Each structure stands twice: as structure tokens, then as C-alpha cells.
């Protein structure tokens, strides 16, 4: 009779502890994504074992939401495993299967614990007999309660910076500056890199420096979106590079434009930039002044790959048959031709030269045709052919300049060049 009464009592306390644990789990689970069902199950199992072993069990201190205490709870559990094993040998057959389960889940626990950022925690005490400092039922003062921050726990690993934006001061400031975090987080290692930065220490002086170089406030965000790695560069290096640009006689506005358009330029060493400037001067046989103009007009020439540029020059020379001075003229008018897709370049030239019968010297006068879409040139040329107005020779009457042919918007093209209505043009487009 006596023993069964004790059993009843024990069962009740057991149920009570389970209930409390479940509550604990409920409070925790919306906040910790890693706290999965098995964790709660595991707690309950552990508690059941402890009640079997007649161990006095106190739920760790009242701040259920603090991660540390859960961590303590878990470590208590894993400590109790040894006990369970010992008692097993003394004849506790019912817990045999439980401890087997525990072995596998223990590994998972220890893995979770490694990942957790536990800066403010003391190492968990291994001594099982040590009572935890606070019981959940203890009263705490108002001031203490105020200091408890009931913040949801940040995920330890995430695929997006969105989880951290509201909590990281650096990210918040970068966001307000106009940096597109959604673009940056897609790049390898950039997210972690940004999170580790400190705004005051790492970012502020770079921003002030960029402003000194001549960037507008509104350009800082897009700049950092393109090149976040400038934040890891050494200040002295950056200053030397800007000084170098000034020394090769780029004026202040030019430098500002170059830096904005080619954000990675400041990550390049001085020798490298020097080599590249030399390359353009040598390859195109330009004077220093025209080379500078070219760079200012299309700064990304300096940071892009040089191989396709070389190739395009050769294509213009050998495949398209332009003379050197013609190439120089075309390049200085539209520098974009150097970075253009080779296939598009040849296709456009083929159509303009062979189908529209326009000689080299006229193409050279209006290199803007290479900027236009081939389909657009085709459509307009065919429409003019259909109307009998396709006359590209400047020596004859009703001459249509190539520049106008490609650059005008549809309405103006119809009224000015084709002398037809836009409806007719659209009808015509549906017959090709």
C-alpha cells in the first residue's frame, strides 16, 4: 500500500513536469526554428527517465525564452544519460530502448549547440548535483524583468539577409543608404562579409572617402551594390589609386565618373590600371588625350576583360574590312563597339553592308547603326524598301541618313522618314 502511494505521488509530479516542459516547448518553438518536435519529445523522455531515477529535478531558471537555459536543460539531459546507463545495469529494463534512442539524438544536440552563438553563456556545469541558480517559480524584481529582452532568437544560418536586417545596425544603415541587399545576398560570401562589418569602424570612412572622390549621395548605394568589396580594401591603397588617376591627368569630374561607372576600378592595383591604360593607347594607336576621352566615355573598358576587346578590334579590321583610322573614328564615337558581342557586330554589319548596300565610308560616318537592334534595322529598311524610299546615298535626293533610320522612335520615323501612318507601319510589320 505504502509503495503504491509513493508511486502515485511520483506519477503526479512526473505528469506535472511533463506539462511544464510542454509549455516550455510551446513558448520556445515559435522563436527557435531549430527547436523541432524531437527536441521537445526528447525533453519529455529525459524527464521521464529522471523521475524514474528519483532525481530531484528543477526546471532551469525563469527566463524560458533565453536560449542559454534551454541549452542548460539539454546539457542536463545529456548528463543524465550516464546515470541512466548505470541504473540500466542495476536492472531498469524499461529504459533500455529509450537510452538507445538518446544516443542518436545526443549527436544532434551537440551539433546544434556548436552552431549556436553563445557569447554570454558560462560553460555548462557538468556537476549534476549543482542546483541551477534560479527556479522558474522565484519572484523577480521589476527592474530585472525590464532588462530581460524577449527578442526572438536570430537564426544561426540563413540563406537570406532579410532575417538580420532588423537586428543588425550595419545592415540597417546600408539599406537606408540604398544598397540592394537582395542582390548582394545572391553573391557568394558577401552576406557573411557584410554581417561581420561594423558601420562606424569599417564603413564610415570608406563612404567619406567615396564622397571625397566625388560621388553623389544617391550614387553610394548603387556603388556598394555593385562592389561591396571596396569595404575590405585598405584606405591607403584606395588613396594611392585615386592619386594615380589624378596623376595621369584625369580631372576631378572624370575621376568621379570613372569610379561610379566602373566600381571595381578602385580594387585594381596601380600597375594593373596603368597596364590597361597603356593597352588602349597601344592597341588603338590613340594619343594620350583621346585615350583618356575614351576611358571617360566608357569606364568599364578598364575593368572588363581585355580579350574580347582585342578580338573585336581584329574583327573590325579583318572581317569587316575597316581601315585603321576608320576603326579609331568608330571607337571614339561609340566606344561600346569594343565590348559588343562579336556575333551581333558581324550580323549587323552583314545586313547593313550586304543587304542595304551601304559602303564602308558611310557606315563609318554613322557608327550608331551598331548600337541599334538588328531586328529594328531590318524592319525599318524593309518598310522603306516597300515604300520605295530606301535611299541611303547622300549624293541623291530624298536621302535617309543611317543615324536617323535607327535612332528615331517609331512615330517620328513614320512621319518624318517613311511619310506614312504608324498604323500602316504596324500592318506592314505583320506581313514580314
Amino acid at each position, binding site marked *: 500500500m505504502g509503495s503504491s502511494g509513493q508511486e502515485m505521488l511520483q506519477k503526479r509530479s512526473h505528469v506535472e513536469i511533463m506539462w511544464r516542459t510542454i509549455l516550455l516547448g510551446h513558448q520556445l518553438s515559435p522563436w527557435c526554428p531549430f527547436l523541432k518536435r524531437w527536441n521537445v519529445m526528447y525533453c519529455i523522455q529525459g524527464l521521464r527517465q529522471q523521475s524514474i531515477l528519483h532525481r530531484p529535478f528543477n526546471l532551469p531558471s525563469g527566463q524560458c525564452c533565453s536560449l542559454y537555459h534551454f541549452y542548460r536543460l539539454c546539457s542536463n539531459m545529456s548528463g543524465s544519460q550516464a546515470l541512466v546507463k548505470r541504473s540500466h545495469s542495476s536492472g531498469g529494463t524499461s529504459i533500455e530502448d529509450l537510452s538507445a534512442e538518446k544516443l542518436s539524438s545526443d549527436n544532434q544536440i551537440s551539433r546544434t549547440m556548436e552552431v549556436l552563438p553563445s557569447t554570454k553563456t558560462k560553460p555548462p556545469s557538468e556537476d549534476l548535483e549543482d542546483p541551477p541558480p534560479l527556479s522558474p517559480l522565484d519572484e523577480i524584481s521589476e527592474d530585472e524583468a*525590464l*532588462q530581460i529582452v524577449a527578442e526572438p532568437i536570430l537564426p544561426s544560418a540563413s540563406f537570406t539577409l532579410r532575417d538580420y536586417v*532588423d537586428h543588425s545596425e550595419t545592415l540597417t544603415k546600408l*539599406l537606408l543608404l540604398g544598397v540592394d541587399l*537582395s542582390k548582394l545576398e545572391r553573391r557568394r560570401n558577401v552576406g557573411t562579409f557584410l554581417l561581420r562589418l561594423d558601420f562606424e569602424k569599417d564603413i564610415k570612412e570608406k563612404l567619406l572617402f567615396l564622397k571625397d572622390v566625388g560621388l553623389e549621395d544617391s550614387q553610394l548605394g548603387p556603388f556598394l551594390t555593385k562592389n561591396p568589396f571596396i569595404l575590405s580594401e585598405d584606405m591607403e591603397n584606395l588613396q594611392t589609386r585615386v592619386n594615380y588617376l589624378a596623376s595621369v591627368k584625369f580631372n576631378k569630374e572624370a575621376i568621379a565618373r570613372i569610379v561610379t561607372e566602373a566600381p571595381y576600378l578602385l580594387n585594381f592595383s596601380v600597375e594593373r590600371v596603368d597596364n590597361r591604360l597603356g593597352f588602349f593607347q597601344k592597341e588603338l594607336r590613340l594619343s594620350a588625350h583621346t585615350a583618356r576621352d575614351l576611358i571617360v566615355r566608357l569606364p568599364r573598358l578598364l575593368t572588363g576583360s581585355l580579350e574580347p576587346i582585342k578580338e573585336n578590334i581584329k574583327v573590325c579590321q579583318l572581317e569587316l574590312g575597316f581601315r585603321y583610322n576608320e576603326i579609331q573614328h568608330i571607337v571614339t564615337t561609340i566606344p561600346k563597339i569594343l565590348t559588343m558581342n562579336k556575333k551581333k557586330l558581324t550580323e549587323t554589319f552583314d545586313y547593313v553592308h550586304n543587304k542595304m548596300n551601304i559602303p564602308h565610308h558611310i557606315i563609318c560616318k554613322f557608327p550608331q547603326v551598331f548600337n541599334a537592334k538588328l531586328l529594328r534595322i531590318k524592319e525599318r529598311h524593309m518598310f522603306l524598301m516597300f515604300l520605295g524610299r530606301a535611299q541611303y546615298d547622300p549624293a541623291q535626293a530624298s536621302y535617309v541618313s543611317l543615324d536617323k533610320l535607327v535612332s528615331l522612335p517609331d512615330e517620328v520615323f513614320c512621319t518624318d522618314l517613311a511619310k506614312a501612318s504608324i498604323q500602316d507601319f504596324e500592318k506592314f510589320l*505583320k506581313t*514580314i
Partner: protein
Amino acid sequence: MPEFGPAVFRTLHGIFAVYKPPGVHWKLVRDGVETNLLKDLNSLKQPDIRQQVRFLPGTLERSSGKELTLTATVLPVLADHILAKGPNYCHLRVGSGHRLDIRSSGVFVLGVGHGNKLLTDINEAHFTKEYTVHGLFGKATDDFSDTGKVIEKTTYDHITRDKLERILAVIQGSNRRALIMHSKIDLKSQEAYELAVEGLIRPMEKSPPIITRIRCLQFAPPEFTLEIQCLHETQQYLRKIIHEIGLELKSTAVCMCVRRTRDGIFTLSDALLRTHWNLQSIRDAIKHCTPRLEPELQKALALKHRIVSCDSGSTEQDALLESADHTEVVTVAASPDQTREAA
């Protein structure tokens, strides 16, 4: 006041047609339409950023000393900021109807959202399509188009419009037979007669390409233009037809351009040009096209049922004919029964 983005997105379902220019892959056309739609959707008014209450800690100087306070402040959730979240709409379900290969141009049907289901229905309705095909006598190439490698050159002086039309009639005749064969109806039945009178006979399942009508629009040697109405075709098949016409006329011919002028109910006037591939025009086109499509699909479904019932009748009859026990008298007796059943 711009419209509310999610509201527009929710109602963006349906089917429309665009004009595919020659020399552009159909996938590029589809992607272009998707990109333009996304751009327009993202430029509309987006849902407001969520607000959250945060308790910011602060200290309050009192006579009794420093006191910690928490002040409740309403702050926008930065995680919802467009720069943190990225654009609201990143992809749309845009599906394509019967495709056009890279060299051909013309009406190209696209569906968006739930419109993709209609695309399947259209595919199962087996509508006919119309093409305008330009041919050129005098040479033959390896891929039947004028840009391919020339493998033969011939004269074409002996070809007259009469001769060409005779060949076209032959093609139409042989395709007529194929059409009846693949539509799987019993020619002797009343049902088949009625369908034929209405001119509705067409295969309702997979079949090889069938030309239902072919005629010469223009004949100015060496060039000629044909109008072809067909189903289950590919554009390369039409090029091959031109090649074969050339051979039949004791000459050779290549195909210069294949242009689809009608795909089911979508005609050239429904097709949107490249400059009109934006949200507003596409929504208008959907509003215009989708209601017209419904009755046509219903009709096609009804036709399918009629053909199927006709078909099942004919298989029964076939079975009767094949069984050796039945005499001719039985089949004659059986056929009026079937017509009664079908009616």
C-alpha cells in the same frame, strides 16, 4: 493613381496572341513577354511595408535615481523593404501554344496564369491553322529554305499557273483521303454524312500533318505565294511541301518565308506586335480573346463527342463484318439500328 500590383497579378489569367518576328527563337519571345509583364507588375503600387511594435530600452532620470524604461515604438519592418526583399514578382507562368521555329513568323499564342489550362484545351481541340508560304523556283537547298546550301539549280520557264494549280489539287486530294482516314469515322454512316455536309471532318487525335486546303495566292515566276490551311504541321513540313511542289513541276523550289496568319481563333489582327508587349495591351488582348475562345472550345468538344460516337459505331460494324458467322443480311440489318442509336 497606379493600380494595386497584387490585385492586377491575381486577375492576370488568360490567353492572347503575339506576332513572332522571323529570326527570333520562340523562347526569346516568351521570355520577353514575361520580362515586360514582370517589369510592369513591379512598377505598380505594392503592398505597404508591415509595421511592428518594438520596445526600445531607455533610461529615465527621476528624483529617486535612474530608472530603466521601455518605450513602445512603431517601426516599419525592414525585412519587407524592397531593397532587402527584392522585387515582388520574379516569375510568371507564361506558356506557349503551337510553336513556330526560328525562321518562321506570325501568330504565336501565349497563355498566362490559368490561361495555361486553356492552352491544353486548345491543343486537344485540334484547330486548323493557316499559313502564307512564299516559294521561289529555280534552286533546291539542303534545308528547303533560301538560306541553306544550294544543291541544285534548274530552269522554271515551263511552269505555268495552270500546272501549279493542278499539282495543288493533287496535294489537296491526297490530303483529303488522309484526313478521312485519320478522323476515324465511318463514311457509310449518317453521322459522317452530316459532318461532311457541315464541313467539320477533322482528326481529333494525333495524326501526321494534314493539309485541309491549299491555294495559290500569287504566281509571278520565279516567285509564288501559297495559302495553306492545315493541322498537326510543323513549319519544316510546309517547307518540304514547297520543295515537293518544285519537284512535281519538273523543277526545284525553295521556301523563302513561312508566316502563320491564323492559329485557331487567333488572327493577325489579334496578334500583338513587339512594341505592344506590355501589361496594359496584354490585359486588353486577354479580355478580348478569352470570351471568344470559350464557344469554340465547346464546339470542338461537341464535335469530338460526335466523332467518337460515330467511331464506336464503325468499330462495332467492323467487328460484325469481320466475324465469319454473319452474313451480309446481318450487316444490312445492323446498320439502320446504329443510325437510330446515334440519332
